[in-house]
């Protein structure tokens, strides 16, 4: 079994290299000295980081604003809906649950087609144009990311100790008071974890967004996506490196905070 264990470790090491490769090359190419992108670069320079054009910065602001608004609206929809699904007695509960989760199953590209066609129809009926602007993006992103929050809330409430709330009711607390001072604070980490995934889903969404931005300011990933189709430049690698470093730091923090590592739990489960 020593041999097998060694081979598995080697396999995992090779996969680690495979996983790192595309990120590593983005980092290396971002600090190359020549204007023309060649690998390996003949020298080292940070100058491309200073030459990032403004529309990338504007794109980042738009992406962050869009993601924040989308997850805020999604919270108002999905957290109450999660409470209703987990605790209520909804008629056709499993059907409603399946409907509200369904955007997860539908490819982002198809959602983009769907919203573009729907917004086109809405313009025909009412004259309100949503297919090319912030409001349309907010609507589409909210629908697409809200199931992630719903799933997090429903899963957390499934293992919620009801005795906690009942004790408070027993002492005469009102329903609203119990909800806001006990239930929501207890499930807050699950909500935070859902918000985190929802934010990333919105921030990095290209396949839906591409149908809903036809003119003017694009989001950051879309700007990078279109620019790489024209020509590769050091500046794109610099933008990629900055985004990757920030997102990696946030993801590592979130993994720690939300207990997403398999370590201790895996050992217990395997031993059981």
């Amino acid at each position: 079994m020593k041999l097998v264990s060694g081979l598995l470790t080697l396999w995992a090491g090779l996969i680690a290299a495979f996983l790192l490769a595309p990120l590593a090359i983005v980092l290396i190419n971002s600090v190359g000295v020549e204007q023309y992108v060649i690998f390996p670069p003949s020298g080292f320079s940070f100058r491309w980081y200073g030459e990032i054009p403004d529309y990338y910065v504007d794109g980042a602001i738009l992406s962050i604003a869009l993601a924040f608004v989308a997850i805020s609206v999604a919270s108002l929809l999905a957290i109450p809906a999660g409470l209703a699904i987990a605790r209520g007695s909804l008629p056709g509960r499993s059907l409603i649950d399946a409907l509200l989760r369904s955007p997860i199953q539908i490819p982002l590209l198809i959602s983009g087609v769907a919203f573009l066609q729907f917004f086109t129809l809405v313009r025909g009926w009412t004259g309100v144009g949503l297919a090319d602007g912030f409001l349309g993006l907010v609507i589409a992103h909210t629908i697409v990311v809200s199931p992630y929050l719903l799933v997090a809330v429903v899963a957390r409430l499934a293992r919620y100790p009801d005795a906690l709330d009942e004790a408070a009711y027993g002492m005469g607390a009102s329903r609203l008071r119990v909800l806001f001072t006990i239930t929501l604070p207890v499930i807050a980490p699950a909500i935070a974890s859902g918000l985190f995934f929802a934010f990333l889903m919105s921030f990095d969404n290209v396949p839906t967004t591409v149908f809903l931005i036809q003119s003017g300011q694009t989001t950051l990933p879309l700007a990078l996506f279109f620019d790489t189709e024209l020509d590769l430049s050091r500046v794109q690698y610099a933008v990629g490196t900055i985004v990757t470093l920030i997102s990696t730091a946030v993801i590592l923090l979130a993994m720690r905070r939300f207990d997403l590592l398999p370590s201790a739990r895996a050992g217990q489960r395997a031993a059981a």
Partner: protein
Amino acid sequence: MMSRSVWNWLALPMVLAFAAIFIPAIASFVLTSFHPSTGLGEVGPEWTLDNYVRVFNDETFMLGLARSVQLGIFTVLGTLILGAPLAYFIARQPSRFAIGVFTLLYVSSLTSIVIRGLGWITLLGNNGPINQALMGLGLIEAPIGLQGNMLGLTIAMVHYMLPFMVLTLLPVVQSIPTSLEEASAGLGGGFVRTARSVVIPLAMPGIVAGALLVFAMTISAFVIPRMVGGSTLRLTSLLIDQQMLTTYNYALGATLATILLALVVGVVVLSNLATRSRVRVG
């Protein structure tokens, strides 16, 4: 005791939003696929199946569908070959190194897909490090084409999909008691024998679920196919984008989108059935 029905009202905002926006949005493109195109971004009021007849008789569209399915199969095989041993390794030897690889898998899966695409364009390019290394080793004379073909696209898609496969397999492997493997080893079964007759059969629900998930996500993927596959590989997702945003034939775009959605939903339903029947048997 509180009555449970008061909670029901809290579902109302989200149900209304879905009833007013999401369901009509899905319905609007499915219905559009049954109307004729009458101009840029417009369809006529008549009902017709012409769009479907046209798609199923058009070489470009059928080739696109075939290529999407082909890419799906290649990517499933690639992620299984790479991911199954990795999931086993992380489940059975949760050392610091294994946790590190798991963390890397997680970080990779959440890193911007466009940036991963940029990385793969660079790696797979004719002057990229892969071709340079192969030429440096004397294995090839001239750069082999890795951009705009199935090989390069499959490599990048396997990178994209590997976390989904491993994260689906991991809990299934963790749920297999180690005592079964010890028993097999005690009876003289080597690693390969134990894997073949104990671990793989017990992990089959996870393998099926992971394969169907990766397949469904791959056939509908957009960013990596467009960045790495480019315009030479005209996969279904790229043809949809082209019909909607370049030629503005909404009817044909909607038809392709409906076919792709039907494929994805079919795979998801299959996946649910497979998981459920397995659970009942197990």
